[in-house]
Every structure is written in C-alpha cells, then in structure tokens.
C-alpha cells in the first residue's frame, strides 16, 4: 500500500512537470476557434495596423529601413525577454529602437501602436518554441523572478505559484485556471474587449489578489516577466492569442 502511494506521488510529480501546456488548452472551444481562424481573430486588426506602422518612417527611418520585411523578425519574439545586463522585454526593445535609432519618442506600452508592432513581431514567431536564455549572468534575474512568483502578496496573501502551479486546471468562476504561460502576448482578451500586454495581465492578477501592482518599468516586473518567459520555454508562440 505504502509503495503504491509513493508511486502515485511520484507519478503526480512527473505529470505536473510533463503536462506543461499553453492557456489555449484551458480556454473554451469557442475561444480556441476564434484564435485558430485568422479571419475571426480580432488580434489581426492590430497586426494589420502593425504592418502599416512597420513601413511608416519616424524620424526619417522606418522599422523596414533597417530590418527589411517583417518576416526578418522570425524567431525574435520567441527569445524575449532577453538578458542584456537586465531582462529586456519586447516592448522595451521596440522603444529602444525608436529612441536610439529613429530619434523618435517612446511609444506608451499599452497604446494601440505598441500593441500593433509587438503583435506583428510576435506573429512572425508563431509556431516556434519559446526559447528564453537564462544561462550565465541571467541566473540572478531568473532567481529574483522565481522568488517573486513564489512570494505571497496582497490582502488575499496569495502567490502566483499557488494558483498557476498549485491550482492550475481547476476552475475560478467560469474559467479554468491556466498555468500562466506568456506565450501569446500581446493577446486579445474578451474580458478587456481588446488587445493587451503581459504587463497589463500581471497588473490584473495583482489587483485581483489585492496587492499593489509593480509599477511599469520596475525591476520586479522585468524579473517576473523574465522568469515567466523562461518557465514557458518549449511552448509554441501563439501571438496574437485569444483568451477569455
């Protein structure tokens, strides 16, 4: 009997690790159908805007002037956030390009223009596995992100891990609790009636547990997003994903 229990516990542990899956799996068939059909996926409205912005010169140069066609971005989004002294998210990288290379003002991270450009860049990597590199000097940021993921916070005193590792697959309200992998951002959420970034999603979760959200651009937010990216390694990029 005891041996059986041990075997059961071992199976549970291995299946939790092996059963890593995208939030797509936890979404309803109707939401999945919306994501599967590009003609029905509202995220494509932003992708199309992104295509126009890609060609549009700002400060004398467009994205296309240096990078060529959007297809040249294949595989790029799958590697973000990337580590360069600190974790850099894809929206931050776009703004670095704008301010340093184009001499243009940074775009607001939640604005339609930034969502459009990151959706276009993300789409180029659709179907490729997430491959965030957290080796070498990135270890410290990864560990900081992991600690934040496991840290209880807010008036409800819940950590990210308690729901998204411990209770994933169970129901919260009408929806299944997903494992919390950021493999489809920016994504179209029915709840938002629009497109949104991972920052926005994390803000939603943190206000949900009645914690004060990490401010945009803070090292905590960057570390948490870096950890989440690494944690999703191997899942396929779905940008622009559709979620409930």
């Amino acid at each position, binding site marked *: 009997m005891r041996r059986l229990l041990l075997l059961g516990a071992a199976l549970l542990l291995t299946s939790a690790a092996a059963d890593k899956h995208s939030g797509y799996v936890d979404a309803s068939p109707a939401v999945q159908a919306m994501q599967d059909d590009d003609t029905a996926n509202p995220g494509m409205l*932003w992708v199309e805007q992104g295509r126009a912005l890609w060609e549009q010169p700002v400060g004398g140069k467009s994205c296309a002037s240096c990078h060529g066609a959007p297809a040249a971005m294949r595989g790029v989004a799958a590697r973000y956030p990337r580590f360069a002294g600190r974790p850099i998210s894809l929206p931050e990288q776009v703004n670095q390009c704008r301010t340093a290379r184009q001499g243009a003002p940074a775009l607001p991270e939640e604005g339609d223009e930034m969502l459009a450009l990151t959706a276009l860049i993300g789409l180029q990597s659709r179907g490729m596995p997430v491959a965030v590199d957290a080796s070498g000097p990135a270890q410290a940021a990864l560990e900081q992100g992991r600690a934040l993921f496991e840290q209880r916070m807010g008036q409800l005193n819940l950590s990210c891990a308690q729901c998204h590792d411990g209770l994933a697959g169970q129901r919260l309200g009408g929806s299944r609790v997903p494992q919390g992998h950021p493999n489809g951002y920016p994504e179209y959420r029915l709840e938002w009636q629009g497109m949104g970034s991972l920052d926005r999603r994390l803000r939603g979760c943190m206000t949900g547990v009645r914690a004060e959200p990490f401010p945009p651009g803070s090292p905590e937010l960057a570390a948490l997003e870096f950890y989440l990216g690494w944690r999703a390694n191997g899942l396929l990029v779905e940008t622009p994903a559709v979620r409930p």
Partner: protein
Amino acid sequence: MARVLLHMKKTAAPGEIVEVKLLISHPMESGQRKDETGQMVKRNIIHSFRCTYNGAEVLRLDLHPAIAANPYLAFSLRAEKSGTVEMRWVDDEGAEGSASAPLEVG
C-alpha cells in the same frame, strides 16, 4: 488599428456559395457602463449594416447592444455574375464605415 478586415474568395463558379467574413474595429459601447467618474458612457454601437451585391441588397442587419467590441460578421451569398460585394454600416455617432471586394464569377 486597422479599421476593417474583409475575407472573401476572389473568384467563384456560377451558383457557388461564397462565405464573406468581416471583422470591424469598433468599441461597441453598450451604453450601460459607467466611467471612472460614475457618469454613464454614452451608447455607441454599430446599429445598422447592409450588404449589396451588384447593387442589389443581399443582407441587412439591425444590431443591438451586448454585441462585443470589434464585431465579427460572417455570412454567405450565392455567386451569380461578376461584380462587387459592398458593405456599409453606421454607428450611433453617425460615423459610417464601408468595405468592398470584387467577385469574379465564371
């Protein structure tokens, strides 16, 4: 963002059923929400939609609140002869939108 995405095949055999799929970027504000100051947000939805094929009406819709933002409309029509499929719609603020695509039959 892009105003509208229209998907429809460009050529069809006579008598063939052609599917028209349309995504319109629109807030579809229901008129039942309050803003941060507690004021009701004025209703602004696309309330009427019309599709013509070579000038003849093939579909007319009256839309109501409770349709989500960025509505997706899909319908079908029978290809008869070459021409244009044209769609027009109008919202509560009087803003008009349109989309059209040629259809070659033969």
